[in-house]
């Protein structure tokens, strides 16, 4: 069983959400339902699961329901219908006290505009989750120091958030979320408010931490490059509906709808795809080897120097596949494998 299971979750905003459910289940669109009933469909029968230890990215434009979706996992928002299980436990049945406990111990959240408490110092912000959980002063201080150091903010313990730049503030947000040692990290457009260079830095920080911590991360973004950079799997939402879930290569190479196709059209496939994403079965042809992890941009010059193509090898240098010149060019130029 997956760590987080979301089944047929719908969320409708308006005066009488339940009355609109039948229309949603009939498959009416968000616009139709808004025109007909004045209700806004936030989520439309969404089903997905998040595995332990993966970075699961939910992507969509504004209004697609992605921020609504992530808030269902810690029940900051109640669904209109559907079921949500975490570790096999139905969190919709949790009492207020139990829910509070789950939020204190199992999952934490990072916010788009950081959500830091302006009247608390960096150290007090980082220790906030532990304070809410009722940990001792000594535990809180030790954890705060450790996580402040981990996100590279040593020396700023006593600063107030308003004295820090956006990127530094989000480091505080990240440290606060990690300080409670939660299993699940919910990140709502966590890096969207940062400028591109800082955003890139933060993505690296997150990936480095993740390599070691192996948290289960649900990451919301509207930026496909970000999704491809950090996501193990990517889900694409459109108007509250889940239109496709898959690894980044699947999303790029096999978009299921026009919406996804438009989304991925501008992607730099030479960088987003790896050799192992497009390889075919091994062929008994003598050819140079490339690692399965190399991005296509790196493979291109090697392939161009050959007649047939290149061999793809795994981490132990064993051949696992083959890429022809045509296949590589197709993949980079048109995003198809034929």
């Amino acid at each position, binding site marked *: 069983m997956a760590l987080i299971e979301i089944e047929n979750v719908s969320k409708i905003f308006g005066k009488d959400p339940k009355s609109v459910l039948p229309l949603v289940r009939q498959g009416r669109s968000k616009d139709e339902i808004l025109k007909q009933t004045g209700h806004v469909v936030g989520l439309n029968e969404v089903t997905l699961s998040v595995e332990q230890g993966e970075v699961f990215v939910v992507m969509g434009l504004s209004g697609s329901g992605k921020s609504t979706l992530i808030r269902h996992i*810690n029940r*900051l928002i109640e669904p209109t219908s559907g079921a949500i299980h975490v570790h096999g436990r139905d969190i919709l049945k949790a009492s207020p006290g139990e*829910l*509070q*406990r*789950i*939020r*204190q*111990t199992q999952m*934490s*959240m990072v*916010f*788009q*505009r*950081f*959500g*830091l*408490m*302006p*009247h608390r110092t960096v150290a007090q912000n980082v220790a*906030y*989750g532990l*304070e*809410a*959980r009722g940990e001792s002063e000594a535990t809180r201080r030790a954890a705060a120091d450790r996580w402040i150091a981990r996100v590279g903010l040593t020396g700023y313990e006593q600063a*107030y958030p*308003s*004295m*820090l*730049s*956006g990127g530094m*503030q989000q480091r505080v947000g990240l440290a*606060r979320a990690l300080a*409670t040692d939660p299993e699940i990290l*919910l990140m709502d457009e966590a890096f969207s408010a940062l400028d591109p260079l800082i955003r890139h830095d933060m993505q690296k920080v997150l990936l480095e931490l993740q390599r070691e911590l192996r948290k289960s991360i649900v990451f919301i973004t509207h930026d496909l490059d970000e999704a491809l950079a950090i996501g193990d799997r990517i889900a694409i939402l459109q108007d509250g509906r889940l239109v496709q879930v898959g690894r980044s290569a699947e999303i790029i190479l096999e978009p299921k709808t026009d919406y996804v196709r438009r989304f991925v059209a501008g992607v730099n496939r030479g960088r987003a795809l790896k050799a192992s994403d497009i390889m075919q079965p091994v062929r008994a042809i003598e050819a140079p080897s490339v690692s399965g992890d190399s991005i296509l941009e790196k493979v291109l010059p090697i392939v161009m120097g050959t007649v047939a193509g290149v061999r793809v090898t795994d981490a132990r240098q064993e051949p696992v596949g083959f890429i022809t010149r045509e296949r590589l060019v197709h993949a980079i130029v048109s995003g198809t494998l034929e």
Partner: protein
Amino acid sequence: MFPEGFSWPLEKWVNGFLDWLVTTHGHTFEAINWGVLQVLIRVERGLAALPWWLIIAIMAGLAWHASRSWRLPLLVIASFLLIGSLGLWAMAVQSMALMIVAVLIAVLIGVPLGVLMAELRAVELVLRPILDLMQTMPPFVYLVPAVMLFGLGKVPAIVATVIYAVPPLVRLTSLGIKLVDSEVIEASQAFGTGRMAQLLKVQLPLALPNIMAGINQCTMMALGMVVIASMIGARGLGEHVLTGIQRLDVGKAVAGGLAIVALAVTFDRITQAYGQRLMRYRQVQDNV
């Protein structure tokens, strides 16, 4: 002439209601009266027991603590020396005692009400028109029920003052709570903060600058009302002004008025400086 038959006995009803209230709930009002009086007497005696220079020193100390500059303490010292030099020291201390007690009671009532108003839609719907009404009514009107229920004297003066001074505090508390960034509230909830802890650790601290502005307004209005309340037996500077007017002794009235202004400026500046100090953490905002 307006037709005489076309009328309704409002005056009789109000009198009847008040009679009923006093006869059935007399004990409650007496208990309130006694309680408020005890507090007031202690504050009055406490202030009266302090030597004049110590009161000035305390106020100047507060001024320094609030502003961390030498200018405000100097202003405070000058104001109090002015009051003393006008021969109005004892009266000013009486007025201060009344005002302090009234503001204390107003805070005890106003802040919780403001919090409820911000959190519960129903409370806001009921309270808002009442607050609107209260703020448009001339302050004299509050003297009437106060006198009806508590007779003449200091306690009704305080009651009238509290009623008059509490609306801005309620409003600004409510505003302060509502202005707290919703993402910060969400963050506190996402980390499993309980309802009460959220109020005490997040909402109230962040609303404090606004609450302090409310206390500032409340203090100013209380000082104003303490003067008016001299009409129903409050002692102090107001009494001085009132007798000055009644006897057409303009000099006396002006001296009293000047002393009131001096007190008002002092308390206004000190409470404002505290409000500013509470926003220290916002200092370097353009950095973001």
